[in-house]
């Protein structure tokens, strides 16, 4: 049962956002020296690190594919990542599912045919979670992959939309997610608009679904811009240093 809770008052959400507003997103690329690529994202109160290793020999041997690289993903939440109790470290059933659907997003965009017999491992660790961690994790991992130089057709982004009362809203935080009527994380390849991840539970009409996808695609322009800025920034800094001379 949903407890009664006013999540939207006078068109404003608890944190002051309007229905279509994203939380503030900051991405830093190249944060883990040992990895082939990495990124750190702050998305509202979410704090997530992602790192990519590979292409490297796929292990154990029997899982390797002679035609293409296999994509492994491991999404985990740190035991200290929530305001509530100490969590269990490692993978629970939720993490297994999120890891699976996340790997599937990147299988579609990475040029896997280029690396037969290899694996590419994507690690996503949630340091602090405040709703929408799988979406923020995918957005962050896409940047980590781009910094690794692994060839991709597209750089996906993800964000969730949902329903609070009768309103469709974008980017639900933890408390909104807990009391919302529906939550729907979506990942999209911006060049084609193809939907690479779609999950949903709750209660949604067909019209609200269309509205939600529309909001996600609109927000995608902003998220893609932030992702690209994170990729360019280290080079800009070097360029500026040389300009100063």
């Amino acid at each position, binding site marked *: 049962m949903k407890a009664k809770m006013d999540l939207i008052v006078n068109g404003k959400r608890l944190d002051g956002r309007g229905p279509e507003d994203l939380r503030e997103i900051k991405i830093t690329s190249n944060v883990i020296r040992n990895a082939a690529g990495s990124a750190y994202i702050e998305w509202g109160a979410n704090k997530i690190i992602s790192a990519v290793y590979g292409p490297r020999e796929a292990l154990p041997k029997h899982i390797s594919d002679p035609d293409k690289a296999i994509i492994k993903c491991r999404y985990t939440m740190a035991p200290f990542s929530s305001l509530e109790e100490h969590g269990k470290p490692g993978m629970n059933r939720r993490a297994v599912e999120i890891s699976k*659907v996340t790997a*599937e997003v990147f299988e579609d965009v990475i040029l896997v045919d280029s690396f037969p017999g290899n694996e590419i491992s994507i690690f996503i660790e949630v340091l602090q979670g405040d709703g929408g961690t799988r979406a923020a994790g995918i957005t962050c991992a896409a940047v980590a992959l781009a910094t690794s130089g692994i060839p991709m057709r597209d750089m996906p982004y993800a964000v969730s939309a949902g329903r609070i009362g009768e309103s469709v809203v974008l980017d639900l935080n933890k408390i909104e997610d807990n009391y919302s009527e529906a939550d729907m994380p979506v990942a999209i*390849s911006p060049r084609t608009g193809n*939907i690479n991840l*779609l*999950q949903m539970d709750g209660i949604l009409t067909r019209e609200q*679904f269309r509205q939600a*996808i529309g909001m996600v695609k609109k927000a995608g322009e902003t998220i893609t811009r932030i992702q690209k800025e994170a990729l360019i920034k280290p080079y800009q800094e070097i360029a500026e240093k040389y300009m100063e001379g």
Partner: protein
Amino acid sequence: MQIRAITEEYLKSRYSRNLRDDNRQLTEYRKIVLKTGIVPSAEGSAEIFLGNTHVITGVKIGMGEPMPDTPEDGNLITSNELLPMASEAFDAGPPSPESIEIARVVDRGIRAAGVVDMSKLFIEAGKVWEVFIDVHVFNYDGNMFDAGTLSAVAALLSARMPKYEDGKVIREGSLGRLPTGNIVTSCTYAKVVGKVVLDPDSNEEAFASSRITIANDEQYIRAMQKGLSGSFTQSEIESAIEMSFDKSKTLREIIKKAVGD
């Protein structure tokens, strides 16, 4: 790879005539046979044949502690077993990510639609009823998601409700029914050689690039899950949603008939 290419060509030419390997149309279900009450030891049970996919789902109800965030609601725990006897492709061992995904998607539709009235499963402070749904596949020929959801919902709707008296769980004698409030059904589609087909069998799944499951009741979408490494366009998903509302009318009737309502 030669055989794969030939099979792909074959499927393409069949699909271009709106026909599948088993002569179904692209948006047609296989024959569904659903029966309830086949395992009397379980509080609820159902057996489904979805074409050659054979699934038995049991519902057991016991007593347990509530989840910290829902202290006054019962618990719902859904598991899936892809038994090694069901396919060459399955091995014994801990549940695979595929199996976990199936269990979680079946669970999500049932939970979101309020099939079980969880608020009526409260016993006393710190004590609630726990409803265990176990989806076991005995012969696998594709589309576990819909076979799982249909059989689980039928098993729940036909389940008897144990009683709690003097600190004991009473499972026999005159018992009422598990309190339920809604019917949810799911429709699963796969994109195979570029076409979206309903209720894929295992041959089609072997060629599927992406998959989507839509769970809905009469009025609302209740759960969705996209799977596999390919993608869908927005309009492909919108037509899948429209079709699911249409197909679910028949599926609900099949469940009602199996439950005997």
